[in-house]
């Protein structure tokens, strides 16, 4: 009975795969290993220590980040990534580094010219999720991980349909307002 054999083989194979699973699709309710806090950079010039954030590979974490982004009123200054009082987050220009750790540092410890420090008010988990989402704003994440459109009035394309910007370190911080 070939196709019964086939289905057995398939089941075995699938089971083997299941043991590995697919982190991209997991619904992590607790922080994965490897995401630990980032120490405050002494000066903005010094690059933050490299920290692995698995959340940039996890669709659920990114969508949680999107929720926080709205709920904690990040769009108050950065709008939907287009920027307003704060710099835009969906373009290629990064003053303080585009890697998760730098973004974590920006959120947790704030930056000159108006970016407040949220470290006291957000948990590490939430900051990593926000960092992952912020990266998705400029298409830094895999299209299978980034969020699609929200069930709201449209504020631009869903992150999963953004073109990938290649981050450039902006040397001279422009003065806001």
């Amino acid at each position, binding site marked *: 009975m*070939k196709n019964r054999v086939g289905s057995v083989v*398939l089941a075995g194979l*699938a089971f083997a795969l299941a043991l590995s699973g697919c982190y991209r699709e997991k619904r992590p309710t607790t922080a994965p290993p490897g995401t630990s806090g980032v120490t405050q950079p002494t000066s903005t010039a010094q690059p933050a220590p490299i920290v692995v954030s698995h959340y940039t590979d996890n*669709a*659920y974490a990114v969508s949680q980040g999107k929720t926080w982004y709205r709920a904690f009123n990040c769009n108050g200054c950065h709008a939907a990534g287009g920027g307003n009082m704060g710099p835009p987050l969906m373009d290629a220009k990064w003053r303080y580094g585009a890697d998760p750790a730098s973004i974590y540092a920006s959120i947790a410890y704030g930056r000159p010219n108006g970016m407040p420090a949220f470290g006291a008010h957000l948990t590490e988990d939430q900051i990593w999720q926000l960092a992952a989402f912020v990266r998705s704003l400029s298409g830094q994440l895999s299209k299978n991980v980034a969020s*699609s459109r929200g*069930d*709201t009035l449209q504020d631009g394309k869903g992150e999963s*349909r953004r073109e990938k910007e290649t981050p450039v370190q902006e040397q001279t911080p422009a003065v806001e307002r």
Partner: protein
Amino acid sequence: MTVRDAEQLEATWRDPPGFFGWFCAINHKTIAKRFMITTFVFFVLAGLLALAMRLQLAQPNGRVVGPDQYDQMFTMHGSTMMFLFAVPVMQAVAMYLVPLMIGARSVAFPRMNAFAWWIFTMGGIMLYVAYFLDIGPDAGWFAYVPLSGPQYSPGKRVDVWAQMITFTELAALMEAIVIICTILKMRAPGMTLNRMPLFVWTMLATSVMVLFAMPAVMLASTALICDRLVGTHFYNPGEGGDALLWQHLFWFFGHPEVYLIFIPPLGFMSSIIATFTRRPVVGYPAMVLALIATAFLAFGLWVHHMFATNLPELGKTFFTAASLMIAIPTAVQIFCWIATLGSGKINFKTPLLFVLAFFVILLAGGLTGLMLASVSLDVQLHDTFFVVAHLHYVLFGGGVFPLFGAFYYWFPKFTGRMLNERLGRWQFWLFFIGFNVTFFPMHILGLQGMTRRIYTYPEQMGWGGMNLTATVGAFMIAASVLLFIVNVLVSRRHGEPAGANPWGAGTLEWSMASPPPAGNFERVPVVHGRYPLWQPMQEPSHVTGLDNDDRVVLVTTVADALPDHRMALPTPSPWPFWSAVATTIFFIGSIVTPWAVVWGSVPVAIAATLWFWPKRAVAERRARVEVRP
């Protein structure tokens, strides 16, 4: 009919041998067998998921699985049972039996039939691989938006679900077309519409329903996947979309689907009851009209799944009336069967047992259905375990029990050997009792406030005892299914030989050897009544002048089945398989990137063309003998 002719006929219609031949097979019996086994494998898989869920719910605050896993489990269970088992298994059985019942040597489009099975199987495999990779859909089998939408179901889980719908509905639609054309154009001479076996009538009604029901869900799931992947707004209230649009489209398919599962078993019932009461079913015209009425009314009920939404009350009352009305055709059939039982001589065998369960279980499910049809009651019962109980009573009573009966009844025809009667009775009672132990308590649980799709419940709710009972019952069902598998595996080698007509039945599928030769009928019969094997033979008794050395079938007229022309059917081919592979790449690719719709269509087009393109040798041979109208 000399033995030489028979051998030639066998050689003409047999599938090519060997490993590669296996991929070229197009004989409707081969494909149907594979189809039945595939659907049964999915039935078992979904059953195992159900066992896991019952374990989780067996006691308060269960810790067997977490919410995420549980959501995937009930979504997989529901989707598998509905899309990968209940509807296709009926079509699979029909694929095997319809040609035998109407005196045809094949289905009308054997290659399309093969393609449908391949595409169905690949869709199912995709779903389960995804599940094992933790990409299992988790929004419920009716995937209500916005929960299943882009914002609240991140990742690919729901895309996999929506694409599984595309696979299975494509297969179901093709099977429907094959069945309709086979029934309307390939009946043996003399089998006028009012001589067709009732099972053939049910499949005709079902297949026509498929044509009008399935497009709704394909449209809905396409819109959903567009919302998720390319940012359309069909279901986004923020941009003028509407969440209820999904519910309307889905249930416009979803309610008729219940009848796609329920109507073919009515055909099993009629076949089995007739055979085991040794008489024709009472009221053939009434039965047929009841089927057609059911098929029509089924499209007028969908809103009774939406009574808890804020739709206008007056409209709801209309749907209440319609939902109550559909009980009448079913009542007609039940009474006709009871009359048949009462006025016949009863041969008490396992198939009849399974069919008799219908009168208890489907009846109970139908009556709870009447309760759910009432707006005021529904708002209390809707989305509770009462509904879970109801739908299982309907689908088991109206689907699974008759289906098992059908397996016991036709297994001798499929394999040439009888299933073990004693094991059969054990299986039946285990199944019957286990079923009621599992699902009856759920009525009470629902009334006591247990909502559906909850992965756990606190102790003080007092639901523990009945949930434990249900879990025990679930394992009885599992044991019974295991018994069935054992019975099949043992009997297909060591069961007692069946002979052509072990039950002394009256319809054509019992007139040839068991298992049937590749060409079904050594002589295509000429039909003079509804039960040709019971009625005295009349002349002409069979058709002559069909070549044995080519796949030639007789096409007859739609209503009166008068001989019309001799059609040559396509020969075995690997291209249905390759087309299915290409289509699978196309569908799965489009989950990842919309561009797959563009580049994915190229291999599909190539495979389809090579499928269509005639073999020169065959074409020329046939061109030589063709007769123009």
